[in-house]
């Protein structure tokens, strides 16, 4: 029962982006299209799951004084693995995510979960936590990206969804940097209202 709870908490109750406000830098940067959001979300989820597993496995072995550098090494290794594998087998996706993949290293969600969860819980729980948090992060990215892409380019997943007259003169601000801040802020506010009403 508690495993299901660990899994679902990442979606709404402890959503890394909207509630814990972690990993905002990649969120703002890659949410300009749904395709990038999904790619980034899954790459981060992969790193999160494996770093959680490994850190949970070696938690007894690492003295607490050097735990942060040890975690960073584990996380950075998995990020590099994702980078190399994606570059070799999914070159188009690697091209569009490019710069953001190395940035997963400094995504505080991953170090945050390692520190707050994986270093205190067993492997199975850490795996479920990583999966849930990763998918929660992906969900948040996709929600923001959907709004930005539809408003800013009239497209969803690269397919035109709004009339041609709109696509020619879309609300460009939504796809530019300010749009990311505005839309994320509004969504965070909505989440807070919903939370208060409960």
């Amino acid at each position: 029962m508690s495993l299901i709870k660990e899994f679902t908490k990442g979606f709404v109750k402890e959503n890394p982006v909207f509630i814990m406000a972690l990993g905002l830098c990649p969120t703002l940067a890659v949410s300009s299209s749904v395709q990038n959001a999904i790619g980034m979300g899954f790459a981060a989820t992969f790193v999160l799951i494996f770093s959680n597993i490994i850190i949970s496995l070696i938690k007894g072995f690492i003295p607490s004084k050097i735990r942060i550098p040890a975690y960073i090494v584990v996380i950075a290794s998995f990020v590099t693995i994702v980078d190399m594998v994606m570059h070799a087998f999914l070159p188009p996706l690697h091209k569009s995510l490019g710069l953001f993949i190395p940035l997963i290293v400094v995504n505080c969600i991953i170090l945050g979960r390692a520190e707050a969860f994986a270093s205190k819980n067993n492997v199975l729980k850490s795996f479920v936590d990583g999966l849930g948090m990763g998918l929660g992060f992906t969900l948040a990215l996709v929600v923001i990206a959907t709004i930005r892409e539809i408003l800013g380019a009239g497209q969803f997943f690269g397919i035109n969804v709004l009339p041609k007259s709109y696509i020619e003169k879309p609300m460009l601000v939504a796809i530019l940097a300010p749009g990311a801040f505005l839309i994320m802020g509004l969504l965070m506010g909505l989440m807070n209202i919903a939370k208060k009403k409960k």
Partner: protein
Amino acid sequence: MKYYIKLGLILLLITSVASGILALLNNKTQPIIEENQRKEAEQARKEVLPEATVFEEVTTPDFSYYIGKNADNQIVGYTFVASKFGYSSEVKTMVGVNPDLTIKKIKIISQSETPGLGANCMKPDFAPKFEGLKLEKLKVDKDGGDIKSITGATITTRTVTNSIKEALEKLMNILPKNNIFEEKSAEEVSR
């Protein structure tokens, strides 16, 4: 003291395991990545110079280009990569030129300009703007030329234009020398 040495050794152990795994994986993926990039460049060259069947690479200290030849071993044009920093990224363009150095076709091969503005240079109506242009015609409308810039993305348009211009000038500087050189060697052979 002993405790701190132990800490260092544990870190050393973790980092060596990590680097070992990464080195192994790098060994496996590196050839695939290089192969992909080679294929991609080959594909782009074919696209901008469809008549050519063989491409010969020519490298000079500050510029490298390809001579495109058809099945009869005649030169049908040249291709090169023009690149310059645009608004937010390096914009790389594969350019194909005819033997008289008018532009045949161009293709943007990598960029990460602003989506919706500069990134519109990837749209199908951008590249044809350059077709058939000569070196002196490479100017954006805002600089008094004929190339119509993308709405709201003059910087990207200008970047592409200027990068091609610079690369084409380099190619022009190299080509006559080579031709003279070839003529000389031909003379020497006839003597």
